[in-house]
């Protein structure tokens, strides 16, 4: 050490100085204020999330507790009953909801995906009409469901289509209601397919439709399916527009799609039961909510499973 010249000595000193500064700096940690702020912020975030989840949990629990005395399989197999609400069930309403939703699927999937494909793959965005269509879809997604009910009443049940108060009219109304959501979700799924896949296909001499049909769509299916299920589960829970397009409340047989002898749906029945004077019906309504939540949860879980199972990571 002693052999070191003065220059080297100065270098060593400087290094030691820098080191001590650094040491202090990296060990000192952040100012306490920052740490506290960060902790509080994090706690608030957790609180926000927790409250939101708590709301969901409370909702489910509340319904389950209120309806617990009626929670049994009978709920799924028995018909509505005015005489003995204790043994009443939602069989026909569930069946009606299934038919309604089936109709929604049959209509929204091709039309929604078709629209999404058109907008994403074909439409030239420099053309004003395509922009109008896009804008229009965004607007429709925000239109209140009750307004769709009015539309359904004026245009589908009566007016131009004049279908009458049949289940199919309800299906169409709900389809129109969720179509914008389905289109938006499908567009997102299609957009998530990287352009390189399209380029690869075009470069092999595939036409546009071949590219869409063989590459883009298969890759977008999980995303589309998820979007569709989430949209459809919203349709399944809608009450207000169905009231307007004439879902009857007391039906003791399984409805048909085109039959003009009335139909009902699960949320409509729940609503109706809850309004009754007799407390037995209130229990029935709570039990119905549990059934409804079960259906929604099932559909959502399926969507999530689909997403996690088939999601393509690019």
């Amino acid at each position, binding site marked *: 050490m002693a052999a070191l010249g003065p220059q080297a000595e100065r270098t060593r000193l400087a290094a030691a100085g820098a080191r001590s500064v650094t040491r202090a700096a990296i060990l000192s940690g952040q100012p306490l204020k920052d740490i506290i702020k960060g902790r509080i912020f994090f706690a608030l975030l957790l609180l926000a999330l927790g409250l939101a989840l708590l709301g969901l949990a409370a909702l489910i629990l509340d319904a389950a507790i209120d309806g617990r005395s009626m929670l049994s399989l009978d709920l799924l197999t028995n018909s509505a009953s005015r005489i003995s609400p204790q043994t009443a069930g939602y069989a026909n309403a569930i069946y009606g909801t299934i038919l309604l939703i089936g109709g929604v699927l049959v209509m929204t999937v091709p039309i929604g995906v078709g629209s999404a494909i058109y907008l994403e793959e074909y439409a030239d965005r*420099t053309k004003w009409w395509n922009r109008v269509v896009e804008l229009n879809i965004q607007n429709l997604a925000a239109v209140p469901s009750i307004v769709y009910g009015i539309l359904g009443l004026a245009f589908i049940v009566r007016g131009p289509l004049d279908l009458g108060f049949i289940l199919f009219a309800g299906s169409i109304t709900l389809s129109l209601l969720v179509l914008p959501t389905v289109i938006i979700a499908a567009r997102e799924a299609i957009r998530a397919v990287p352009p390189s896949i399209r*380029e690869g296909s075009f*470069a*092999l001499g595939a036409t546009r439709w*071949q590219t869409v049909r063989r590459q883009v769509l298969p890759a977008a299916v999980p995303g589309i399916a998820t979007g569709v299920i989430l949209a459809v589960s919203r349709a399944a829970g809608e009450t207000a527009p169905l009231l307007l397009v004439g879902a009857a409340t007391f039906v003791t047989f399984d409805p048909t799609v085109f039959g003009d002898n009335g139909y009902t749906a699960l949320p409509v029945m729940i609503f109706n039961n809850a309004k009754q004077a007799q407390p037995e019906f209130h229990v029935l309504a709570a039990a119905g909510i549990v059934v409804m939540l079960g259906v929604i949860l099932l559909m959502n879980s399926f969507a999530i499973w689909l997403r996690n199972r088939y999601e393509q990571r690019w």
Partner: protein
Amino acid sequence: MAQDESRAESRREAREAAAGRAGIAVRPQEFQAHAAGLREKVFELKGVGVRYSGVAAVKEISLDVHRNDITALIGPSGCGKSTLLRCLNRMNDLIPGAEVEGRLLYHGEDLYGPSVDPVQVRKLIGMVFQKPNPFPKSIYDNVAFGPRILGNKEGLDQTVESALRSAALWEEVKDRLDSNAFGLSGGQQQRLCIARCIAVQPDTILMDEPCSALDPISTGKIEDLMIELKEEFSIVIVTHNMQQAARVSDRTAFLMVELDADEDNRWGHLVEYDETEKIFTNPAHKRTEDYVSGKVG
């Protein structure tokens, strides 16, 4: 190497067989005379320019691409190499707002003529991209995609096998043709993309920085492959790697960014186009020399 040669040989034989009639002589290697004037031209570009939404990206490019050559496009980032390459098989048609000007002949025919069908063009002129972009399907389906959409469903297995052999990938994947292409390494994926391209039997292959995402070993394999493939196809390759251009290409075009006086507009233009050796050892322009010697860029 001996093995490679015999592989190439067998491939050539396969082609001869496919040619169908024995009377046609398949051109032996030796005839690839380098007398430029006489050589068959695949592309002739005359004052080609491209605009994106009205803004010029490249301007006034004139050059000829010869058959069974590897032609390299080099130049700094943003000089329009990819843009130019994508004109050659009308991939630019897919970009809204892209316009091509000038004349671009393909085997003497105007590639942008009114009766030309871009889909047909892309069948003849294949393309390999910078990032390997296999389809999210099995290896087999990736290669079979092209033949299938062309409606050539007969002898598909054979087509797939010979395409994979040509791309020097067969040995590595023959036991797992049904597994997903995403399970392959980057280099394998890129060779798969080349196989996919070969399977539609194009006339010309365009490659846009095919090795830039790959490790040196994969890169080496693909370079070897290119040299093999040029017996059969004409190849245009974009690369940012000058060593690569020097290693594989026959002719090299050097593009550069031009700025106008107030630096508001910039576009790519062709500085020099010549035999690769000339470009790298004795370029005609100072800017080329600066670039290839690493002084800029």
